[in-house]
């Protein structure tokens, strides 16, 4: 009836244009992603901002996000704090000259000739005026206090030697597992892999006693030498990689009279650069991060400490001095983060995944 005549193009109220409808999922997901990312990285923001704060700024009851200090205004040779005071003419920045309980005397820095006047209201409830006022003093101070220079040097030496050791040994062992028909090799490989679930605490005490007995306690040797005997993760990763290189190439080289060393050096390794970089980086990061073993083996030898245990020592001092702690933290992560960004493909794509997948 009538309804039929009424049904002129009755569009629903919120009709999205086709273009917008196509874009909508992008907008929603990307916004969601951005919010999650910001929450995820907020601690880094906290670190970077706090590193530039003085202890007074950290403790400030009105604590600001940015490193900022309250401003004072000098009136007739005396400094007075600037407050945000609500007046009849809106909120004004006034200097508090004589604080009182219910009403206080102020002077207007914009118009000091007007002299002191009284405003009703509890000054304690008014916010101070802040200015951006970062300090860089935390960096040299914490560098000195923690002796970061020495910690860096120690850690880099240990990490570099260990990386060389693990690369050399893991390459040899992985090549052995990838290319040679030795009876029982598959059982050996299973043993190798099963060492991954063996907690290192099980071997820790006898190994510790062994190293003490041969006089390696309080030296770096226990942190370096064992890495010259290959490690299950790295061997696994490299073996998978080597096996993806066609055998025809090494067979051709062998027919030309190449020894297995030459095959490894001239055929296998040149094609495995990404895997080698990955293994090297993994170890470097491991050594940079390692805590347990330096703690056990370097006990009492502060001059040999690595970053991780060296900084832990100062953990308690830092608790009361967040600015120093965050400045030291920023310096301690600079090198790993730079390395990570230079080589992020290695971590985020490809190689890592192929290693763990199987």
């Amino acid at each position, binding site marked *: 009836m009538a309804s039929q005549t009424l049904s002129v193009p009755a569009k629903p109220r919120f009709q999205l244009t086709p273009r917008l409808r196509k874009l909508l999922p992008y907008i929603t997901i990307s916004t969601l992603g951005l919010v999650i990312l910001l929450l995820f990285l907020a601690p880094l923001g906290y670190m970077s901002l706090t590193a530039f704060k003085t202890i007074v700024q950290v403790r400030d009851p009105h604590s600001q996000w940015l490193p900022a200090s309250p401003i004072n205004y000098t009136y007739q040779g005396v400094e007075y704090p600037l407050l945000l005071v609500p007046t009849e003419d809106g909120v004004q920045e006034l200097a508090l000259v004589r604080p009182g309980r219910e009403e206080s005397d102020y002077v207007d820095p914009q118009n000091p000739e007007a002299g002191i006047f009284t405003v009703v209201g509890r000054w304690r409830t008014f916010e101070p005026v802040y200015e951006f006022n970062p300090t860089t003093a935390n960096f040299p101070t914490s560098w000195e206090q923690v002796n970061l220079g020495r910690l860096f040097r120690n850690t880099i030496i240990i990490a570099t030697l260990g990386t060389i050791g693990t690369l050399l040994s893991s390459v040899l062992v992985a090549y052995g597992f990838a290319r040679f028909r030795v009876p029982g090799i598959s059982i050996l490989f299973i043993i190798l892999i099963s060492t991954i679930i063996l907690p290192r605490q099980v071997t820790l005490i*006898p190994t510790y006693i062994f190293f003490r007995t041969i006089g390696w306690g309080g030296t770096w040797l226990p942190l370096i030498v064992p890495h010259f005997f290959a490690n299950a993760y790295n061997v696994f990763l490299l073996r998978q990689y080597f096996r993806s290189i066609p055998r025809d190439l090494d067979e051709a080289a062998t027919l030309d009279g190449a020894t297995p060393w030459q095959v490894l050096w001239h055929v296998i390794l040149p094609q495995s650069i990404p895997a080698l970089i990955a293994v090297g980086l993994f170890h470097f990061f491991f050594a940079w991060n390692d805590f347990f073993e330096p703690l056990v083996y370097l006990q009492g030898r502060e001059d040999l400490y690595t*970053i991780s245990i060296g900084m832990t020592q100062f953990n*308690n001092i830092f608790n009361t001095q967040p600015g120093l702690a965050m400045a030291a*933290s920023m310096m301690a992560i600079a090198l790993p983060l730079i390395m990570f960004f230079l080589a992020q493909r290695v971590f985020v794509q490809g190689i890592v995944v192929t290693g763990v997948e199987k």
Partner: protein
Amino acid sequence: MAKKVEQPQGKQAKPRNNLMRREIRWGLLFLSPWLIGFFIFTLLPTLASLVFSFTNYNPLHPDQISFAGLSNYARLFTDPFFRQAIGVTLRFVLISVPFAIIIPLGLALLVNSEHLLGKNLYRTLFFMPSMIPVVVNVMVWRGIMSTETGWLNRMLGVFSIQGPSWFQDERWVLPALTLMGVWGVGNAMIIMLAGLQNVPTELYDAAKVDGATSIQRFRHVTLPIISPIIFYQLVLALIGSFQYFTQAYIVSNGRGDPNGSTMFYNLYLYRTAFNFLDMGYGATLAWVMFVVVLLITIFLFRTQQRWVYYAGGE
């Protein structure tokens, strides 16, 4: 995909044998770093550790070592600190393992979404914090969760929630450590992402044609296919909880503060062996940990056919 080794045939047997012997010699030469290392740094210490667990070895008086029978193992049953350490560890497993699965999975789904602009940048940035040394991680999160000046409690304050004093409160320290662990999910995220990328698109298309909603597609297509990876992460997270040490040590100054609430199993082991130098009992604790981890792993592998889906049977 191992190819069958060709069997030597009568005529050629001899030169082939020589060749094989040469190959074995070379192979053993290349394997030798690991063979030696396995013997010295794994097999011998593991056995020695078992032997130590039956003694009262103390490095200060190595000459007074004597056979203690099963007394170290009997002590486990009466040791209140052992019970406490197990309790803390199990509580942490219950609180943290779900997060160790759900958060990396959520992030992997996010950075795998076709609708996310700048995916690669997100992958890099979500991964990045797991590269930050644990000490720094702890320091930064202690700042974030500091009772008065930390951002977390100030954020809660915006919603008029009075935040707890995370690391000083024995009821909140384990959740605080769990929250801190969220920063280390990068690796798990990448592995799960690889799993998601392996899901064949035809399956999604087929489900779409059948009118499945995106939640149904996730539930019935994505989850079964990535279940082996979730399983793998579960095993890793459980083993990791038993080995949890560094964070607990730094947060509690190696003492399990506040009031023993961070006395994780591994921290107790460290204190027994290296602070109290009771290495016999320490070795016992280590072996118990090994057996427990082994049992958990075996148990999980046993249950996996109930919920883990392997394409192509195995």
